[in-house]
């Protein structure tokens, strides 16, 4: 899932400062699940924004709506009348959703309310961790399902660095050393021999280094 976190109210205030009639759009998919941009957050930030603006002597009129997925045109298109009614849109989606709206509604500014963080999972209630970098060339099979590209601070592919202490990363004492996790995992599934193989330097071409990526799959094209 895409994990995002809300921007501080102060920042949002500045972002929408120029408008006094605005549409807050929540997204019902990833950011709802990661408790950052669902109906509830849209509600809370609407209250906060309205109060902040009233205190500043410039009341703002906020319309709230949460759609199923902001990255899907089928859902976005229904927003058109609401967008038309307002001066601008504050999107509570991930960066993809924000851009989807921006590209669809050409004559209205679309702002992001969230900081889109990473692809990750819910580790514990309200604790999210990054698990995938989206490098475009997945190597998880080799590492017992634990991604050193994402979870090793140095992205080492052939074992831990010398800084790993007490199973923890030298960058962050609270973060487990990815290679420690990989070792335990491979030991558990009886594949320690994989560690014997030398992994060649990673091909980063499928990753974002070449600019925004695009995938076309003809079998699904209509």
């Amino acid at each position, binding site marked *: 899932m895409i994990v995002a976190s809300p921007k501080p109210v102060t920042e949002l205030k500045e972002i929408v400062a120029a408008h006094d009639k605005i549409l807050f759009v929540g997204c019902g998919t990833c950011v709802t699940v990661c408790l950052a941009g669902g109906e509830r957050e849209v509600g*809370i930030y609407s*209250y*906060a924004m309205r*109060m*902040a603006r009233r*205190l*500043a*002597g410039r009341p703002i009129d906020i319309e709230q709506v949460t759609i199923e997925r902001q990255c899907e045109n089928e859902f976005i298109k229904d927003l058109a009348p609401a967008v038309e009614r307002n001066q601008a849109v504050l999107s509570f989606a991930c960066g993809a959703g924000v851009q989807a709206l921006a590209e669809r509604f050409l004559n209205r500014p679309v702002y992001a309310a969230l900081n889109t963080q990473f692809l990750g999972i819910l580790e514990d209630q309200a604790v999210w961790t990054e698990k995938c970098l989206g490098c475009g060339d997945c190597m998880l099979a080799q590492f017992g399902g634990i991604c050193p590209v994402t979870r090793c601070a140095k992205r080492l592919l052939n074992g831990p660095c010398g800084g790993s202490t007490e199973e923890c990363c030298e960058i962050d004492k609270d973060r487990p050393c990815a290679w420690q996790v990989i070792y335990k995992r491979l030991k558990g599934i009886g594949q320690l021999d994989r560690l014997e193989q030398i992994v060649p330097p990673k091909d980063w071409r499928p990753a974002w280094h070449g600019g925004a990526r695009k995938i076309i799959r003809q079998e699904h094209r209509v």
Partner: protein
Amino acid sequence: MTAAHTQPGASAANKGAWEPEIIAFCCNYCAYAAADLAGAQRMQYPPNVRVVHSPCTGKIEMEHILAALEKGIDGVLVAGCLEGGCHFIEGNLRAKHRVEHIRGILDEIGIGADRLRMVNLSAAMAPTFVERVREIVDTVTNLGPNPLKESAQQGVVSK
């Protein structure tokens, strides 16, 4: 009892007839029972508080606290069971964190965190309930009216 408390607006003489309005979200098992007991014991406390009954402080939605303040309530008291004593195990702990979060937002937007407070008490702690009510009434009295009150709309609202 203490005459000063029967007239909470007295210390804010320059604010004329203003009396703080406080909403107390009370959980069913402790705080509401404590408030009830305070009444049964005929204890006197400021009449500025209006109790909203909730099954558990863990049910109190953040929007509702914000809504109360936006509607012009001068202060909000979230009253739950003692920590560790929640009938629903940790509803009050969740409420505590939510209250902290909203206090942060209130500071950010300029209303001030002090208008919102969470207290913990058991069903038997009627005097504590009374004391906490007095405290928030005093605090809010000193803060003055909620700047979002309709009547405070005109002119520049400073904080």
